[in-house]
């Protein structure tokens, strides 16, 4: 009697590509209040910048403050650009650190990791899904800054064709295409950090530790990047191209920095992805 039941309960063979877990991962990520709090905080950056500049526009202090700040009063479209420049060094890496650091450690901390693995999710598959979730968050976070900036800029300042760094002028649709490209550039910039966060997350079941370590690494890399004595190291830092998106604002677009950045980030993904796999595939799940 018991022996035959094994065959009758055989699970569906083939099955889907397993995309349902990606959907589930995204749903879980965006059903957390924490995720929306971070997105809200990111949206606040362009809002704050735009409002402050609008309120004090008469006594504008030219030459000081973040890049593009002085262009805002002439063209609201620059709000996005200014906000990105402000968010990239600290705020974006902080939120990426929270999401990437939480990937595995968060599940371990809740204990849900063991149920995902027993389901079975498959360890490699779970890592890939977790990374995909973190990568999506990078894009959403960046896009939040860009879109909020564009909206607030349009509301508070005059909007019109934009003069690019190379002197050429593009219309509003062309400018938005550039902004989207910019969001893509920044997203790619953050993928290396996400991979580092994923790896750190496999080391611990204390998510806060993994989050803090990831965010701290982003700051440390930028500090090292600011020391001229370490010039030989700079091209290898994952933060090296973070602010190098100016090339996308030329006509025609210069793709070198985009390609260099993508290659560098890919290297970080490969190395830390492999480390995460090496650690996680054999790890005893005791939480």
């Amino acid at each position, binding site marked *: *009697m*018991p*022996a*035959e*039941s*094994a065959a*009758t*309960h*055989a*699970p*569906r*063979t083939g*099955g*889907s*590509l*397993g995309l*349902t*877990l990606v*959907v*589930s991962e995204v*749903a*879980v990520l965006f*059903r*957390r*209040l924490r995720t929306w709090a971070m997105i809200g905080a990111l949206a606040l950056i362009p809002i704050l910048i735009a409002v402050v500049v609008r309120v004090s526009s008469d006594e504008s202090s030219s030459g000081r403050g973040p890049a593009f700040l002085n262009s805002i009063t002439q063209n609201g479209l620059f709000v996005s650009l200014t906000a990105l420049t402000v968010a990239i060094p600290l705020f974006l890496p902080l939120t990426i650190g929270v999401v990437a650091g939480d990937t595995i450690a968060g599940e371990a901390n*809740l*204990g*849900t*990791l*063991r*149920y*995902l*693995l*027993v*389901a*079975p*999710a*498959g360890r490699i*598959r*779970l890592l890939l899904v977790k990374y995909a979730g973190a990568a999506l968050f990078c894009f959403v976070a960046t896009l939040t800054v860009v879109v909020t900036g564009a909206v607030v800029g349009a509301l508070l300042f005059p909007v019109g064709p934009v003069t690019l760094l190379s002197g050429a002028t593009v219309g509003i649709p062309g400018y938005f295409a550039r902004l989207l490209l910019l969001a893509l550039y920044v997203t790619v910039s953050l993928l290396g950090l996400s991979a580092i966060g994923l790896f750190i997350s496999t080391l611990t079941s204390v998510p806060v530790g993994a989050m803090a370590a990831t965010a701290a690494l982003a700051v440390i890399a930028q500090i090292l990047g600011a020391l001229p004595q370490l010039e030989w190291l700079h091209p290898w830092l994952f933060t090296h191209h973070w602010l190098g998106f100016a090339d996308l604002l030329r006509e025609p677009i210069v793709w070198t920095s985009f390609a260099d950045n993508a290659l560098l980030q890919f290297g970080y993904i490969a190395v830390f992805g492999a480390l995460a796999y090496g650690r996680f595939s*054999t790890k*005893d*799940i*005791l939480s």
Partner: protein
Amino acid sequence: MSAGELAIETRGLTKVFGRQRAVDSIDLTVPRGSVFGFLGPNGSGKTTTIRVLLGLASATSGEVRLLDGEMPDDARAVLPRVGALVEGPAIYPFLSGRANLQRFDAADRRTDPATRSRRVDEALERVGLSHAAKKRAHAYSLGMKQRLGIANALLAPRDLLILDEPTNGLDPQGTREVRSLIRSLSDDGTTVFVSSHLLAEVEQMCTRIAVMSAGRLVAQGTLDELRSGGTARVRVTTPDAAEARRVLTGLGLTPEPHGHDDVVTAELSVAGLQPETVNAALVRAEVRVRGFEARGASLEDRFVALTGEGFDVAG
């Protein structure tokens, strides 16, 4: 017993953490269709064994067969047929009970998304959580979380259920429900492997048991086999306690010190000695017997004999 008839089989399974042998060379044999009780005091290595069975932790040495596969190599083929509750339930507190189950169901790529909602609702129904399905899980009581954990094990038809302390945190009503749930699952042909430190529970549900103590498997077999391993006892109530002790000693028994002046107890430690012989000898010696009780070895006596007194947490 051939391998095909076993739901779980381990050979020399050992798990070492640092210097501690958490699981020390155990050979478990769980026949298909049985309700198998996995007994042992806290810290005796039950949960570690279960983690290794399910591929969550790797064995230091030894082999594990689960259904028709070797673990952890065949985990992808075997685990969809296994429902598990390991070391208590785990939940996403910010999701509803239903969303929690949908998440765990989605984790297995071979489950059918088309039937997901129905299966989740059926599992919730089965553990009596339907009314709280939409509530966020952080508002669940301990017992409700436990029910959710059991529902997670029942998301698909399973050949094997591994339930670690399934009645933890449940009220007496819930405990009864879980017992009858396990019975009905077993009637459907599912093998149920239940770990517990509660003897009474195991005695009521299980057909076979294994006993762990300090990482070792100290006994394994049917309930009757385990009971028969112990010795029966006699208990005499009499005003002539001193005389009664003398008679028992004369029969080769060793009367034990007892708190009551009028009670004498002893193990029937002499082979072939029947309780009625003891009683006849007492009466012949004109001991005024007010009460005479012969008791077979209880599982509890046996359990304590195997694992030591006091339920101390093994270090």
